[in-house]
């Protein structure tokens, strides 16, 4: 599947990706930023895990992984805002939206054929939307993001 990957050596921490997401969803960004060091702010978004813990934690099966595209989706209509997904996410990238008592979830901008807005708007091209097998780290079988949490393969 295609994933969003970050080239840290191009990220200037401008938060344009967050602004694009926030702009589309009227203030509810699905991508967050965290400090890697005190002077390096990097974006953190949903990784659409192979075996998503958020889906497993959801008591109403509102979160499902699309078998065709690999996108992990959430139905806003059925979400009760229990925040289980936010607690379960090993990367801490599902922020609960307090005002509506719902959790926000990245869908890789499935509504637009050009791909995610955050990737297209990234000023420096630090964010890339690319196939799994094109990632050099994945090809080489090294660390990049193949991780398991509580015995589940998250990415």
């Amino acid at each position, binding site marked *: 599947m295609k994933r969003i990957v970050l080239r840290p*050596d*191009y990220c*200037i*921490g*401008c*938060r*344009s990706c*967050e*602004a*694009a997401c*926030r*702009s*589309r969803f*009227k*203030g*509810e*960004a699905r991508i967050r930023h965290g400090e890697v060091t*005190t*002077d*390096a*702010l990097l974006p953190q978004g949903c990784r659409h895990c192979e075996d998503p813990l958020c889906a497993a934690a959801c008591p109403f099966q509102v979160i499902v992984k699309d078998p065709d595209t690999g996108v992990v989706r959430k139905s806003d209509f059925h979400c009760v805002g229990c925040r289980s997904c936010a607690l379960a996410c090993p990367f*801490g990238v599902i*922020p609960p*939206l*307090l*005002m509506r008592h719902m959790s926000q979830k990245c869908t890789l901008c499935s509504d637009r054929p*050009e791909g995610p*807005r955050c990737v*297209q*708007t*990234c*000023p*420096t*091209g630090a964010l890339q939307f690319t196939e799994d097998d094109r990632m050099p780290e994945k090809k080489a079988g090294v660390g990049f993001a193949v991780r398991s949490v509580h015995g589940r393969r998250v990415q």
Partner: protein
Amino acid sequence: MTQPTRTTCPFCLNGCTSGVEFNGVVHQMHYFADAEVNKGRLCPRGNSANIVIDHRERLCRPLLDGRDSTWAEAEALVRAWRSEVKPEEIAIVYSRGRAADEVRRLHGLAEELGTPNLACGHIEPENWFNARLEGVRDATLADIEAAKSMLLVGDVFNTSPVASWRMLDARYSDRKNRVIVVDSVKTRQAGFAHFFLQVRPGTEPLALMALAALIDPGAAHGVDVDRYTELAGVKRQQLEAAADMLGPAVPGFVASAMHTGRVVHPSLHSLASQFVAKVAAKPFTGFRETGLPFGPTRFADLRRAMAEGRIKLLFWTGGLFPFSYAELLPETAKVEHLIATSIFSPDPPVRGLVLPMTAELERASVGRSYWGEVERSPLAAPLSGTRQFGQMVEWFGRAAEKPETVVKPSGVDDVLAMAARAAGIPPATGEWLLIGEKKAIGLRGFHDPEDEVSVNRADAARLGASAHSYLMIKSPTAEREFRVHLADAVPTGVLMIGTNVHANRCLFPLAADELTGEVTVAPAPVSVEKTARAPVAASENLTVWV
């Protein structure tokens, strides 16, 4: 879904192509991947264009002393006030948001009214990139792409994030290429530098003049390199290494940016950056959000006229900083009739008449980007209740466009003399110095409340503060409580805050640049103390925009 309208983003001078599409309910951004300058990429400001169009704080009806009024009442008032005062008692000020043709129209209006009081009220330091040094060429996109040696003064990346893409590509294209950054703060941009010169806040021009003297001692005659380096807090050997990288034989460019609350002498900052470009035989770009021509009257002189009660009617059009801050511009209290135009409701409310205007995104205009002429098309129909600039100008008089005065470029001797004078001015005293941080966060604090202050770890320990605890910062004009963000990038004795939100801007009193006498927003001496408020982790302190 409507077809996306294609236009040039008005929020800075990079000239990015952007667009908005309307699905019948909300406006959404559209990214044009075929755009030459930005290839569909936009910064946070550009990405907030769609929310500006129907922002909940847009002003849709005239306000009179903070209460709703009508267009009929507003027009009658303007005409009545206009007839009450003599021409020399009228002052016109334009600031950010006014297009080039609108400024020319105001010049014509001032002539029609017979008032000499026409001033540029855009007092941000960046506007001093209008001051040019003779013999310095403007950089082009091709210069950036072919650069092997780059000198970045201030936080260029945060001023124009999209422009940084070509710089990073140039940096990575060859391992021998070099990036030099001169700044008082070790920003993220400095992390990309091969050579980072961290100077004392406000002393960038002195470091640059010393650098120029090391590149070409003949051109920078009279520059005392050792004294300038000592004042800037850098070592001569560091500058010598930087001078080697910037030799005239190496293709490259010099780029400079200035931030509110971080520059002491903006005119010299601009000219010293250009001076280095001149001696290193490189083109130059001054990165900024907007550039407005200076008016025939200086803003400092207009302030004095207001304070002395010589101005009875003030017409302020464009961004309301610092007009809407009574703390910063108390002279407006002496003016009988205040008229302003705004696209947002003033916060806090201001005295007098405020007229709702169309936003830059709702009208056509012609202007300049760093890379050449640009045209802007309306992204959306004007918001109901707003009016075009020309309609309001007509209430004052029928004015034709008149070209603004062209400022003569400065010569090398002027810059050397200014630097010598700046070196003799003692730095601001005080235990704590408040400086501004540039963040491209979008209009109206789009996605950042800027309630954090960056503090050096040693300073935080001295204050008894830890990460996410709270500090109260008090300046002569305002005070605000900030959450602590530990950042070793900030020098000792310095506190750094964002300058996009009103509450933070009020902490910086308007200062006079001793070199030009003009008004500027410089680093401010402040007092600071830890408050009793319990620390709150940033992740728990969610701000939700609805």
